[in-house]
């Protein structure tokens, strides 16, 4: 028993240490973003976390995936209570540690976990069918090939395997209980696995113990592996959805944030006195708008890690629907991919060494130009990500720094500057519509 305990503790410590290390890297990457203070409105922010992340409110804009997702989500949260017992058993060398203390409700609890496990299996199987057989449109965009497609399937298959192991463990455990074998104390019968256990009675106790222990070890090792898979995967959303909904903008979706660091210059250009609240000396920005991940607020980088590539944004995007290159989901995926590339660069050199690349190597001007700023992507995101915010920052860079502006837009700018209107009509014709009034 002692060897098993030592192996278990070593495995646990290794898994948690490695996970913490990966998370600290993600945190470092997120903080490469521009500093942005987020203060006030605590209650509203917590309310958003409760409604959107915990409550999955936005998911219910679309009922079928919402209910299936709810099964997996509840399964994840609730079955984790059982993981606590499994971990303690592993450390202490006990078997079903909680049983003596909650003897009456123990089988009820485990039965509930088992029902959830079955629902998770059903939901994940349906998701696999939706992705690979039915080819639901939002999973078929060009950005959803190779790793993103594989990643999604990995997660679903993995969750099914974990649930099957959990059920196998319980079934073989109960079969051993019928035989009054060893330390397998009676637990009361579990709803889903009891009938299976009755069938398993034919098998010899030795094989059953192998099955039970094998399933137990594979299950917990699988859980720890899965934990370490998260930081590499879109599935990281199960953790980051919570902070992301907390830090998401509370302003109207149509409101663009002010570039405060150019305001003093604009004011002085117009001969306006610097007013007190705005006269705080600010150093000029490194870039006007965003050229690379460093120029984006850390909030948008957190959002990139929170994206689970569900594609609701892209499905709702009018540009994407009409065959334009723009896909809001790809904006988030590109941001994360570039950020990870920067992260690897830092890992390798100790600090970021210019690689001659930027986010603009991932996202083309054509994509950025196709956005109508309709906010459908922001509206649809179940975890309050705004691809629009990133698009607009990149557009600022294109126009103000890269001077890469479509000719028609340049004409529009000139007209606004000279005529006070985006069209070339003189200001003194502004009131003409009124002269035709009855």
């Amino acid at each position: 028993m002692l060897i098993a305990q030592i192996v278990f503790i070593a495995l646990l410590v290794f898994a948690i240490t490695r996970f913490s290390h990966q998370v600290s890297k993600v945190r470092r990457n997120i903080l490469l973003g521009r500093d942005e203070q987020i203060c006030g409105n605590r209650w509203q922010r917590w309310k958003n976390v409760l409604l959107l992340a915990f409550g999955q409110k936005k998911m219910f804009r679309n009922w079928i995936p919402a209910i299936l997702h709810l099964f997996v989500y509840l399964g994840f949260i609730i079955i984790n209570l059982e993981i606590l017992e499994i971990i303690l058993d592993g450390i202490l060398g006990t078997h079903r540690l909680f049983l003596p203390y909650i003897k009456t409700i123990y089988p009820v609890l485990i039965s509930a976990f088992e029902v959830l496990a079955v629902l998770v299996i059903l939901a994940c199987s349906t998701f696999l069918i939706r992705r690979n057989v039915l080819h639901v449109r939002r999973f078929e965009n060009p950005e959803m090939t190779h790793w993103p497609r594989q990643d999604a399937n990995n997660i679903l298959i993995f969750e099914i395997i974990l649930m099957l192991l959990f059920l196998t463990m319980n079934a073989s455990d109960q079969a051993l209980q019928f035989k009054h074998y060893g330390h397998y104390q009676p637990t009361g019968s579990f709803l889903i696995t009891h009938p299976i256990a009755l069938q398993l009675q034919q098998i010899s106790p030795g094989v059953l113990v192998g099955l039970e222990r094998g399933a137990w070890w594979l299950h917990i090792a699988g859980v720890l592996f899965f934990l370490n898979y998260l930081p590499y995967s879109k599935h990281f959303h199960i953790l980051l959805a919570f902070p992301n909904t907390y830090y998401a903008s509370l302003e109207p979706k149509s409101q663009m944030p002010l570039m405060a660091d150019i305001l003093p210059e604009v004011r002085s250009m117009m001969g306006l006195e610097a007013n007190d609240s705005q006269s705080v000396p600010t150093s000029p920005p490194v870039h006007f708008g965003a050229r690379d991940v460093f120029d984006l607020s850390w909030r948008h980088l957190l959002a990139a890690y929170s994206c689970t590539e569900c594609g609701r944004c892209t499905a709702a995007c009018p540009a994407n629907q009409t065959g334009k290159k723009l896909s809001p989901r790809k904006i988030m995926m590109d941001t994360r991919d570039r950020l990870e590339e920067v992260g690897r660069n830092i890992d390798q050199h100790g600090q970021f060494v210019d690689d001659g690349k930027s986010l603009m190597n991932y996202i083309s001007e054509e994509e950025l130009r196709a956005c109508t700023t309709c906010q459908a992507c922001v509206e649809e995101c179940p975890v309050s990500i705004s691809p629009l915010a990133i698009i607009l920052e990149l557009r600022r860079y294109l126009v103000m720094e890269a001077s890469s502006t479509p000719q028609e837009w340049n004409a529009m700018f000139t007209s606004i500057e000279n005529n006070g209107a985006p069209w070339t009509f003189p200001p003194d014709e502004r009131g003409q519509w009124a002269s035709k009034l009855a």
Partner: protein
Amino acid sequence: MQIPTVAELHAKGEKPELLYWVGCAASFDQRAQRTARALATIFTHAAIRFAILGQEESCTGDPARRAGNEFLFQMMALKNIQTLNQYGIQTIVTSCPHCFNTLKNEYPALGGHYEVWHHTQFIYNLIREKRIRLKPVTKEALQLVTYHDSCYLGRGNGIYDAPRDILQALQMKIVEMAHHRSRGMCCGAGGAQMWKEEEKGTTRVNIARTQEALATGSHTIAAACPFCNTMLYDGLKHAGKEEEVQVKDIAELVAEHLASDPPTSG
């Protein structure tokens, strides 16, 4: 009817009850000018003392900002705020959701604080407070209408009900499009797209949206944004339906339904 400018009133030592912020489209675009005139008719009917800025009005900076030109946006915003504050303007009604969003949400950060209404909100209040009188509707006049949500009104500012409530008050029967309210599909003009060619795609956004509108079988497509109106009308022309189906701003529909005599002031 003569619409005074704020400057004219100011010279007489007067201030308007509200400023009608016309916006570039309703100032210069023939179709949108109809909306401006309809709205002026409604204000007059409700005996509201309003004024316009006339040639002192400038672009709010919305298309410049969305295209990426924050410098130009800030210049326009500061200039407009200077004008508005100089006249002590407090209440603004605008017939453009883009101007509405900029004036209401983006000017406060630059020192412009006003009570800003979109004309659909404002008209709905006038109807509710019985400050305008509508013609009684005959049975055969009952017509089907579909309402196209402007992104900057709907998703941007949560204004979904006011335009629909007005249509209901006009006794029109609303048939919703496949995508409406928070799921409403863009007309294709926002984000400064109005001022450039659409990017390469399989179809145009306004054509796709107009198809949705036509699928409702309505003879009227109501909208509340001058750019949506233009895009949808172009969509109708593309579909060859501009004779059978009309695109109208909510203000135009209300103006058509005004009773000949205003309510007696109580």
